[in-house]
């Protein structure tokens, strides 16, 4: 091979740079934002760990139940009953949407497209 002296170190440098994001100890995932809930409310629709992991699925269930299955009442795993409504149930307790839903979604890089239609407490002001 010609120019071995140049090609090999060049290749090594390229590999090092290309894999830099995987091994360089930079950046920091940060701490998840604190959740903000209306004072006086103790528990969510389902246990907090379940909500944290599965609230998007739960919202899909709620949506299909209300819109397609003609059922607007949700019975939780503990037997509590909730009116199925994103605006009037979820955002009643989590009334500060930007400090609760949005802050965590910004952190997680999730962008739910719901608020063009579903009304938030911020829309009233």
């Amino acid at each position, binding site marked *: 091979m010609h120019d071995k002296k140049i090609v090999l170190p060049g290749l090594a440098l390229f590999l090092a740079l290309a894999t830099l994001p995987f091994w360089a100890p930079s950046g920091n995932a940060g701490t998840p934002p604190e959740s903000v809930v209306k004072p006086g409310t103790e528990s969510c629709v389902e246990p907090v760990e379940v909500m944290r992991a599965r609230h998007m699925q739960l919202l899909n269930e709620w949506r299909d139940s209300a819109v*397609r299955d003609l059922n607007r009442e949700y019975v939780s795993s503990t037997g509590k009953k909730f009116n199925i409504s994103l605006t009037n149930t979820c955002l009643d307790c989590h009334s500060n949407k930007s400090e609760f839903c949005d802050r965590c979604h910004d952190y997680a890089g999730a962008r739910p497209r719901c608020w063009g239609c579903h009304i938030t407490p911020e829309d009233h002001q």
Partner: protein
Amino acid sequence: MIDKARRKLIARLGAAILFGLGSAPALDALLGRAVRASTPKGPGNGGIRRGMVINLAKCTEGCTKCLEACHTEHNVPAFDNPKDEIKWIWKDGYHNVFPGQAHALAPQSIQGRDIPTLCNHCENPPCVRVCPTKATFKRPDGIVAMDFHRCIGCRFCMAGCPYGSRSFNWRDPRPFIKTVNKHYPTREKGVVEKCSFCASRVDRGLGPACVEACVSGALVFGNLNDPSSEIRRVMADNLTMQRKPELGTNPSVYYIFQGGDV
């Protein structure tokens, strides 16, 4: 003499045809079995068929209470440009509401007046057939409903609806909503919408907002499959008309022109 290759080909074609005839749709057709259309026939499929009677003998000319109640309930925007108009329940002239049945010698009182009209919640809804995402569907109680989460804004349903009951959101409706009702979501640019027969109220045991707002009792809502319901009593005592009955959609909205004793 036919050469071997041609014979083989013909035999294979014959086998393919026999195989095709054995397929389920072909068998159904050959044996005369009924093939179910995409929209099952029969009123609703759940014993209930919600319907409405609009009694023009009682409907006050110039009154817009039903329109206002509906628009407030569902956050229907009011655009200045009629091209952007979003229609749930609206008023139109006799000749536009009943083309084909209307004629020039009808009473002047009818020809000159506006007639309330809305989605007919057809028994055979063309909009449901053409919707590629099943965003529009027929509920078991006969209401032709929309799932806005599935609407891709293709507007096939607008082409399919023979009554002009559907509107497309060309613009963001939010700035044009007078008072926001937080009990019903708005819509956004790019989706189609129409009257829902107040499905969200009906499911909570309430009647439609327009019926509740009508002070003269011109609007009657009920179960068309229940012979003892108020709506059926009204229909038994008065001759009723549907819009464009010749199309076979079988609307669930009926009109009374000359009132009897209701």
